[in-house]
């Protein structure tokens, strides 16, 4: 038996299948952590499940002859609105997910370096003086970097190490560059670069967007009239970009 299918219903079915695929794709790539905070993965999984359910419903609806013939619905979606859905699918499925870089960092501006509310944190316990070096890792990045900016005097002379991508904010002095990681509290849309200025004599040889591991001593310096923490580097080691480039704010 020949069933006449409604073109609009078929188009909707294809769009729903596309979106299910987009969610499936995103959930299964390692890039997932570059898009959303790991805390919200269940949210994306829920979305995928509901999209599958809608796809199945739409499949029935497309094949339902009575509905197609008798539908008095005026869901005047218009042809134009499908372009929005299809365009999103093309962008989402074809352009690969890539971690945010220094171009976005300069659009967003570094955390702490501009007017705005700093969420107060309780100062972490200082490492004992005999401890040789404080390693800044993905887990303690937010805590320590915030503490360095809020109370930089307390940390002067501390040896630290940190990793991040190189970025140069406006009017960075020639001997300095900035090492940052994006801080995510919900999804990539709220990413804010957070990190420290590095002082290093050969700083011109370090390319923006490359990843480095820094070892050095904390000090303060004057940047555009603000007293900011700076790492006087003793070692700058180029490294491969980290698999999880962001740091996550724990709520």
């Amino acid at each position: 038996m020949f069933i006449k299918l409604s073109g609009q219903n078929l188009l909707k079915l294809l769009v729903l299948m596309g979106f299910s695929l987009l969610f499936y794709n995103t959930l299964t790539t390692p890039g997932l952590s570059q898009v959303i905070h790991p805390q919200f993965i269940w949210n994306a999984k829920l979305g995928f499940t509901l999209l599958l359910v809608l796809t199945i419903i739409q499949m029935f609806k497309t094949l339902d002859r009575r509905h197609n013939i008798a539908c008095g619905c005026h869901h005047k979606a218009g042809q134009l609105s499908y372009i929005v859905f299809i365009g999103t699918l093309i962008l989402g499925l074809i352009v690969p997910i890539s971690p945010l870089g220094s171009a976005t960092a300069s659009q967003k501006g570094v955390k702490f370096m501009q007017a705005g509310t700093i969420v107060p944190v309780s100062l972490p316990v200082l490492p004992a003086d005999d401890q040789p070096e404080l390693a800044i890792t993905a887990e303690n990045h937010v805590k320590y970097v915030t503490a360095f900016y809020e109370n930089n005097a307390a940390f002067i002379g501390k040896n630290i190490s940190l990793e991040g991508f190189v970025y140069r904010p406006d009017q960075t002095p020639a001997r300095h560059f900035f090492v940052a990681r994006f801080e995510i509290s919900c999804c990539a849309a709220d990413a804010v670069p957070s990190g420290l200025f590095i002082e290093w004599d050969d700083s011109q040889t370090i390319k923006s967007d490359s990843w480095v591991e820094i070892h050095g001593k904390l000090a303060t310096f004057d940047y555009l009239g603000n007293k900011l923490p700076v790492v006087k580097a003793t070692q700058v080691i180029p490294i491969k970009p980290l698999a999880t480039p962001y740091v996550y704010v724990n709520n």
Partner: protein
Amino acid sequence: MQDFNTIFLSIIIEALPLVLVGVFVSAFIHLFVPAEWIQRILPRKRLTGIIAACFLGLFLPLCECGMVPIIRRLIHKGIPPYIAIAFMLSAPIINPLVAWSTYLAFSAFPSMVLYRLIGAFIAVVIIAFIISTSRDRLVLSSGEAAATSDCCGHHTHQPPDSNSSFQSTLRAMLYHACDDFFDMGRFLLIGSFLAALIQTTVPRLTLLSFGQDPGYSVGGMMFFAFLISVCSQADAFIAAPFLEHFSTGSLAAFLIFGPMLDIKNTAMLLTIFKPLFTLKLVLLITATVFGISLTMVYFPQLWEVICFVH
């Protein structure tokens, strides 16, 4: 370009699941909670009626997209317009789904949920009370009086020979959910696209200077909310990235005004209300939300106490 794509995709992955939940819930309520039931439980006194209407959203967590057809039916069934409008304006904000998504988006500043809910409540009470004092009762456009009370024909296109009415209701509900996804999804995608575009092309410093002036930032965020027409379950995710740069009052203005008025539902309002009444309503909503948001900007301590900001 790649950064734009990452941000665009991240907003969609984060917000679309909430819209999907909303689509399923609203489809369910649309079909299983009769308007008569709402009418029966509403108090008769004016102010208590308005306040009760404000909290109906707790049981009817609908997006603003679904509100206009419902209030049309309510007004046809004899509910005073000011009650229907109070319901229309409050339900997309004062409801558990929206509170939850706002909480998720503003996990760095959870008090924003209270700014949004309390601000919206005060605004709706003021707006509905002013409408209730006006004399004109005939607010529906002339073509409306004869129109059928059933909005989308979801019940009329059921075949009469269907022997199981529950089954056909269920089917209508599920089909409706599919259409809803498309009706609401496109505004979300356009909004996410614009938000990602602004994030990657406009330097924050430009936004920042715009966000500093209290009057401009409140008005600007309201205009932004009007333009992007994002569903109230997802708009918090678009506002949250601005937390560091915009005043609390201007973000609250965005979160309160967006669900009440935007491009798509203003167009829908014009199809049911008289043009002059629509204009009055739009101006009244705009002025009230603007005023309340300004009190957040100029009396921050008062609001910090109300909203438990530590």
